[in-house]
Every structure is written in structure tokens, then in C-alpha cells.
């Protein structure tokens, strides 16, 4: 009834090709954005920021990044954790080397460094595909973690090998360090999510995105119709790594504050992000958000319900949580292999016809 195209006339090409062609979609997007920007910062507390919203936003960026590479360009990568580590360590080096520059630019800088590293590790993708490429990126994962553990320059020769985020500000407001207010950390991440989300959405709708999808669907055919596989694949690696690097930088600087590379950026994180995009939906920006929400929020929710609500023993709750999340993943993959994004798409299709489906 409300969700429909009928009566929504487009009078210009720009209107016709906008991100959300349906009016209801558009308004809903603005509403969500307005709530996220204008309401949440006023009600947020430390727990909500550091246990729920900040990790969700950061993982969303990482998931969008991997989705560009895997979902849109079809290159499977297991190096996400390693690339996040590159982002974290480069933002750390930048923060400590140039303390007077705004942290905002450091995060962007960390993304660019990661893009360069991603480009380098993307080179094998020109020759190998599929599972073999996954193994090559797995090598990147282990190599990068080893590197940051091995070379003391990366952690400024600290005794423990940890990196700690010093206090840095944006417009005089602290966004890293222990005295950060919850809303500041949240808004800082939100700005990156919105900017990068819009960027990804528009990239994937444009020439570049179409080239990526052509390569994903059949690389030989794409080459024949004039898509340069070198440029398409490497640009996917670079842009995806940029996103992942920004996520890694925020993960370290804003969310955790202190990081140990082996634990924070281990192979688990690579799998976590991969699960996010598989659950959320490959080749969908919304899917990246949905997947991140599923993988990050579900465990917190289950834990709060089981331990806080039902008063269960913590070990029992932790084990049950594994079982439930695992079962949900299996159930999803069987019932909806295209992920949460597909469910959303179907719901919208139905809504368009509702309440008169014939």
C-alpha cells in the first residue's frame, strides 16, 4: 500500500537512477539516518557504544570491504584479519608519528596504506582463481600477523608487543583513548560508515561495479567484451582493502584501544567477516550490514538473555550460544542461500503488491 512505485513519477534521468528509486525506501533511509545521527548519540551509554554499536559499525565497514572483493568481484579472500591489522598498525604509526594531525586523516591514511598492501597481495589473483586464491590470501593473513609480531618497529619497540592508542581528538573532542565519551566514538565511526557506505553503493552501481560483476560472472566473457581483468581485479583488491583498512584502524583506535595482533586480527576475524557476508548476502551492501548485525549482535543478545535474563551459568550460556549461532547459520544457508539480503528483497517484492497480490 505504502511501498509502491505507482504514482512516483520521475521526470529526469538523475531521478530515475537514484539510489533509492522508491519513495518509501528513500524516506526510510533518511529516517534511519536521522535516528542514527540525531537520536542515538543522546541516549547512548558506554555499554551500548562499546559492546553493541561501535563494533557493529566497524564490522559493517569490514563486511562492505570484503563484499566488494568477494561478493561483487568474485575473488575469495581469507586475508581480512591481516588487512585489518595493516590498518590498525598504520594508524598507530601515523598517530604516534604525527600527533598534531587530526585522527580523521590518519584513519583515511591507514586505509590508503592498506589499499597499497592489498594491491600487492592481489597480484596473484591475476593468475589463480577460486580456492587457490583463497589459499594465497590465507598466506597474506599469516604473513602479516607474523610480520607485526616480529618487527618491533611496528609496535614502537614496546616491551609487550602491544600497541596502545594515545588520546587523539577531532575538533577538540576526544575520539580515541580512555576518556572518550561514548557518543563521540559512536559518531566518529558513524561518519565513516555513512561515507563509505554511500561510496560503496555508488561504486557498485557505476562502471567499476559493473566491471567487477562481469569478472565475477565469467571472467573470459568479460575480457572479450573489453573489461580489463588486471584493472578490474586490482581495483577491487585496492578498494576492498581500503575499506578493511579503515575498519581495522577504527577497530584498534576507537573500539579496543589496545591490541595484540595475534589475538585481535587472527584468522578467526577473517572467517568472521566471511561469514558475515555469506549470511548477509554476497553482492549486497545491505547484506553487509545485516550480516555484521547478525554476527556481532546475536551473541551479545543471546548472552544477555541467557545470563542476564534467565540467570544461567556463564559456561553453559557460552556453549549454548555457540550451538544456537551455529544452528542459525546452518539453517540460514539451507533455507536462504542468498542471505539476509535476499529475504529483504523478497519481502520488498511482496510489499509492493500488498495487500492485493493478484
Amino acid at each position, binding site marked *: 500500500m505504502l511501498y509502491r512505485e505507482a504514482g512516483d513519477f520521475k521526470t529526469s534521468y538523475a531521478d530515475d537512477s537514484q*539510489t533509492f528509486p522508491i519513495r518509501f*525506501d528513500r524516506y*526510510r*533511509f533518511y529516517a*534511519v*539516518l536521522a*535516528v542514527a545521527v540525531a537520536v542515538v548519540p543522546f541516549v547512548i*551509554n*558506554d*555499554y551500548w557504544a*562499546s*559492546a*553493541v554499536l561501535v*563494533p*557493529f559499525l566497524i564490522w559493517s565497514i569490514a563486511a562492505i570491504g570484503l563484499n566488494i572483493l568477494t561478493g561483487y568481484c568474485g575473488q575469495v579472500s581469507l586475508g581480512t584479519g591481516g588487512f585489518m591489522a595493516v590498518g590498525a598498525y598504520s594508524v598507530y604509526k601515523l598517530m604516534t608519528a604525527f600527533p598534531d594531525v587530526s585522527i580523521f586523516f590518519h584513519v583515511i591514511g591507514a586505509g590508503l596504506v592498506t589499499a597499497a598492501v592489498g594491491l600487492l597481495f592481489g597480484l596473484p589473483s591475476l593468475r589463480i582463481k577460486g580456492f587457490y586464491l583463497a589459499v594465497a590470501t590465507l598466506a597474506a593473513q599469516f604473513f602479516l600477523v607474523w610480520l607485526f609480531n616480529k618487527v618491533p618497529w611496528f609496535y614502537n619497540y614496546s*616491551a*609487550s*608487543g*602491544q600497541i*596502545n592508542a*594515545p*588520546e587523539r581528538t577531532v575538533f577538540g573532542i576526544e575520539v580515541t*583513548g*580512555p*576518556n572518550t565519551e561514548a557518543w563521540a566514538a559512536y559518531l566518529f565511526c558513524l561518519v565513516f560508515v555513512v561515507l563509505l557506505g*554511500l561510496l560503496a*553503493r555508488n561504486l557498485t552501481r557505476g562502471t567499476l561495479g559493473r566491471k567487477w560483476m562481469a569478472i565475477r560472472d565469467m571472467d573470459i566473457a568479460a575480457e572479450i567484451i573489453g573489461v580489463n581483468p588486471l584493472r578490474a581485479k586490482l581495483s577491487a583488491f585496492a578498494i576492498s582493502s581500503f575499506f578493511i583498512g579503515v575498519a581495522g584502524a577504527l577497530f584498534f583506535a576507537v*573500539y*579496543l*584501544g*589496545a*591490541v*595484540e595482533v*595475534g*589475538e*585481535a586480527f*587472527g584468522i578467526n576475524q577473517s572467517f568472521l567477516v566471511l561469514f558475515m557476508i555469506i549470511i548477509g548476502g554476497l553482492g549486497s*551492501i*545491505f547484506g553487509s*550490514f*545485516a550480516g555484521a*548485525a547478525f554476527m556481532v*549482535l*546475536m551473541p*551479545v*543478545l543471546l*548472552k*544477555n*538473555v541467557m*545470563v*542476564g*535474563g534467565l540467570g544461567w551459568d*556463564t*559456561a553453559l*550460556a*557460552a*556453549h549454548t550460544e*555457540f550451538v544456537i549461532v551455529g544452528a542459525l547459520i546452518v539453517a540460514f544457508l539451507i533455507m536462504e542461500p542468498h542471505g*539476509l539480503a535476499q529475504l*529483504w528483497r523478497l519481502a520488498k517484492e511482496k510489499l509492493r503488491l500488498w495487500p492485493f497480490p493478484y
Partner: protein
Amino acid sequence: MKLTKTRMALAGALAGMMAAAPAMAELVFPSLSYRTGPYAANGIPFADGYADYMTLLNERDGGIGGEPVRLLECETGYNTQKGVECYEATKDEGALVYQPLSTGITYQLIPKATADGIPVHSMGYGRTSAANGKVFEWVFNYPANYWDGASIAVKHLLDVNEGDLNGKKIALVYHNSAYGKEPIRTLEELSKKHGFELSLVPVDHPGQEQKSQWLQIRRERPDYVVMWGWGVMNQVAVQEAANIRFPMENFIGVWWSGSETDVLPAGDAANGYKALALANPGGDYAIYDELEANVYSKSKAAGAGDQWKTVGYNRGLYAAMLAAEAAKEAQKIHSTKALTPAQMRDGMEALEMTEARMADLGMANFGPEFKVTCENHGGSGLGKVAQWDAGAKQWTVITDWIESDKEVIQPLIDEDSAAYAAESNISERCN
């Protein structure tokens, strides 16, 4: 950018949060435990000991100074992310002191807890330089720290070698994380001082696979191996050492690598393995009679109840006892029953453990004597060496309290804490 589903999930999470409404006017002790994951073998006994001691206080004395104790357990899985979530979830409930039993989480909590004004007690782990109370107002690591441990191990080796380690080779097998890297600096200094050769053998998390490390040890043939291991890594290392027939009496673990679960899987081959001891092993203490009468017999024991009298369980008891004693101290100082975290901190800083006090608590000779002061948050830095007797399946303490080499450690602590102070703009207290 369609976030509607997310919002729905958030609303659900909110409902979950609401259900956990806090109850006030109690002494809240959060226990960031880990009963799952590759470190659970060590996390469970500690968590059980900690919980049982708190239950004992409630059952026997009605809490601490008449104020009931509420234990707030939160599962971290030894994972820093979950540790942060647990910290944020529990801190608003009036948490008095955090004991996360993880060096990684401790590093995470030091700046946060300092900003929030909640004390952290990392008993024999965490950031070593936190022993300097002038810089680390809210962090305590009494009775001993990692650098003390490294020094105690070397001192024991000196004793074994009649005071001369010149030309000997010592290998450090360590968990490749902040925890395992802590002793390196001290061992390097000590190797300069005593003339032994140090080689470093890192083991990556979680440490189930150590074939290449022990191959390296077999090739290098060090005279002694010192280990900084935790969780499943300990069991594997002891087994691998046995496999290459490394003489067990030349293999010394830190106090986190010396519990029953670490040596039992290797069976008789583990006989003679040594480890440092923070608190005495065994169950020969009056406290166990009290626990039996007030906790075990009422089936109020935490966990499965199969950890009693183990090293890890004793250490949990010890940590809880120190927290409870500090709370008593705080109640005395501020002549109040209900405590705030800031008052708790004052109590911790005024804590003095004497032989008589431990005997009163039914834990005679359980840990070292020490006194916390404004400058010294690290205690006395004493440790013992225990040896595993595979036949009797128990740890035997083979030395008296060994004092660490403060001459080497104190400058290192001053240097590291000064670096932290400069990094975080902290001016020294206690002057």
C-alpha cells in the same frame, strides 16, 4: 544502507538488557572468567576458587563486614573483545575490583578502569610496571609480577649451579602475546648480568602445535628451558618436552604453567617438571574445612566441584581472599560498610598480609608476606619453586620463598612506567 533489521535486533538486545536489572547495596565483585575455549583448563579452577571463597564469606560471615557479597560472573573466553564487553556490562553495577586473569584484557582495562576510577588487580600477571604505584594509581599486581618470576626462575637456576650460569644456554618458550613477551626484557638483562645465553622460542596462540619449536630446542640443546605458557599450550609443551626426552628437572614454568592440568596429560613423563608457585599448592589448609562445612556440603560450590585443592583453585581462593581482605581494610579506613570503587582502592593500597593474618583466615603460609604502599603496588615479589611428582600426582614445594633481583627489576619498572606516564600525561603521585 537499510538499517531497519538492525534496529529490530537492537530493540531485542535492549529487552535482554532490561531483564538484567541491577540490585544495589551489596559488595559487587565481578569475575571475568573463562570456562570455554583453549584456556578453559586453567580458567575453570580459578573461577571456581574465586566463586567458592565469595560463597564462603556469604554463608559463614554474611558477607564482608556484614555486607553481602555479590559475584558477577561474565564469560570472556580469554578474548579481549569479550573482556571489554564484560567490563562495560558490569562496571555500572558497582564493581569494586576487576581481576580478569588475562594479561591482554588487563592491558585493555588499565586505561579504561583508570578513567572510570575502578581498581584492577592483576595478581601475578598483567602489566609488570603497574607495580609502580606512583604512576599506576588504580592498578595493582601484588604479590609478585612477571619480572619477579623471571628473576626467581634464574635465581633458582643459579642455586642449582652453585651461583654460576656463565656460558649456560637458557631457552624461553613463550606464548606469543603480551603475556609471553613480558619476561623477555628482564631475562635479557639477567643474561647480561649472569652471562648466560638466552634464546627465544615463541609459540603462537593457542599453542596446540609446537613440533617446530621443540625441534629447535632439540637442535640448540639449551641447558634449561623456561616457559611462559597458558592454557592448552602448557600441556602440549610438557608432552613435547617429554617426547624429545628433555630432562624435566631442567624445564621450569612460570606460575601460570604449573597446575595439575598442565602435567597430568603427559603422565609419568612429566615427572620432575618444575614450576614457580605464587600460592602454595595442596589442600592442607584449615580453609578447606570451612569450605567443606559452609559451601561444599550445602552444594553451593561453583562449577562441577572437581577442582578443589588444585593449584588453579587455590590461586582463585587466594585472589578472592586478597580482594576480601582489601575490602575489609577499606571498610576500616572509611568506617562504612557499603564501598565505592575508590574506597576499595584505598583498602588495596593499605593491604598488609602477614603470617598471622593468613593463619587467622585458615590459610597459614599460603602466600608470601607483603605490604602494599602508595609507591609499591607490586608486593614483595617472592615466589617458590614446586616440582611435579608424577607418582603421587602432586606438586612438592622444593624451595623456600625466593626473593627476586630488585636491583635489575626496579630500574626496568621505573623505565617502563615512566614511558607510560609520559604517553598518558600522568604526573607521579605519593611525593
